[in-house]
């Protein structure tokens, strides 16, 4: 696996970002600059707009107003190609495990060896000829992650990759993420698992009701969050 230089797409600058569907403001005036490598966690209760924000960061949705820049450039296809997004619900193709990897490898340079490497890394080599959609939930999520990594992204965006997985599988995925981060890939991780954010995140974005309420280093956020919503969220209270 090639080791690209640390996060050349940074800084990420988000400027007065708004997203609206049918007159309903779903994301309101979000501004933030992320300039640190490592893992940025996006935390917040359900419906806070985390998934929407992630899609916007990847360019799958167009903002109604405001701007997103990666490395001072407006988001476009060339930037999206340098990123990979793992969806909350893995979207696997109706093909074998191996064929799912083959599909995203560059047609010019793909090789069986490269694919087997990717599968071995994700611990899925044994299942390579199985239909991808018959894998267990954890294996499916691992395949989705392996497929994303196979494209050698510089930025990896993840939407609750461990929701509804057991703790052993969660640990496997967390290890993969830490390893990936150590290779210099910038990771943006949406999660509502506070424990996971504590284990992985270097800095934290806290969202609530379509707004970005905090952007802090992880230690500051977990020790002394500045917003009352974040405090309540960390205390496990139900925040509305």
């Amino acid at each position, binding site marked *: 696996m090639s080791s690209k230089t640390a996060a050349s797409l940074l800084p990420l600058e988000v400027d007065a970002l708004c997203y609206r569907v049918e007159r309903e403001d779903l994301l309101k005036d979000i501004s933030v600059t992320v300039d640190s490598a490592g893992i940025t966690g996006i935390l917040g209760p359900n419906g806070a707009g985390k998934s929407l924000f992630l899609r916007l960061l990847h360019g799958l949705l167009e903002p109604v107003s405001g701007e997103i820049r990666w490395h001072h450039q407006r988001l476009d296809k060339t930037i999206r*190609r340098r990123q990979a997004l793992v*969806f909350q619900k893995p979207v696997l193709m109706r093909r074998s495990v191996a064929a799912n990897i083959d599909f995203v490898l560059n047609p010019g340079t793909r090789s069986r060896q490269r694919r087997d490497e990717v599968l071995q890394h994700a611990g899925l080599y044994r299942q390579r000829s199985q239909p991808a959609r018959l894998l267990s939930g954890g294996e499916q999520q691992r395949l989705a992650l392996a497929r994303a990594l196979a494209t050698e992204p510089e930025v990896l965006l993840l939407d609750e990759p461990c929701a509804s997985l057991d703790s052993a599988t969660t640990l496997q995925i967390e290890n993969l993420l830490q390893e990936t981060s150590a290779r210099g890939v910038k990771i943006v991780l949406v999660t509502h698992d506070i424990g996971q954010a504590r284990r992985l995140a270097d800095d934290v974005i806290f969202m609530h009701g379509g707004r970005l309420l905090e952007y802090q280093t992880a230690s500051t956020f977990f020790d002394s969050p500045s917003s009352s919503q974040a405090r309540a969220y960390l205390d496990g209270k139900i925040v509305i």
Partner: protein
Amino acid sequence: MHREYDEQFRSFCIPTHRVIGALIWDSRYSLLTVTLAGFGRAIAEVGAVIIVGGNIDHLTRVMTTAIALETSKGNLALALALGFILLILALSVNAAVYALRASARRLSYA
């Protein structure tokens, strides 16, 4: 299926021609089963029409009537042979459909 794949393909920046190819390829079994089911219906409909109206003297002869005719003429061997062919045709079309359905489920979990 397109809706399901769409965002993921856009995320990977898959060019349009590959998207179309992948959508057709990944739905090949359901497409085939649909085609065969349609084929089966057509055969059934056409068959019914022919059985009723297709037996015009000197012009056409339908297999089933031909079988009956040959039997009544005492040409049992030919009748049996024709019956056999008919049976095999029907069976193989059905077998093909079932095999396809089974492998479709196994391979693609469509």
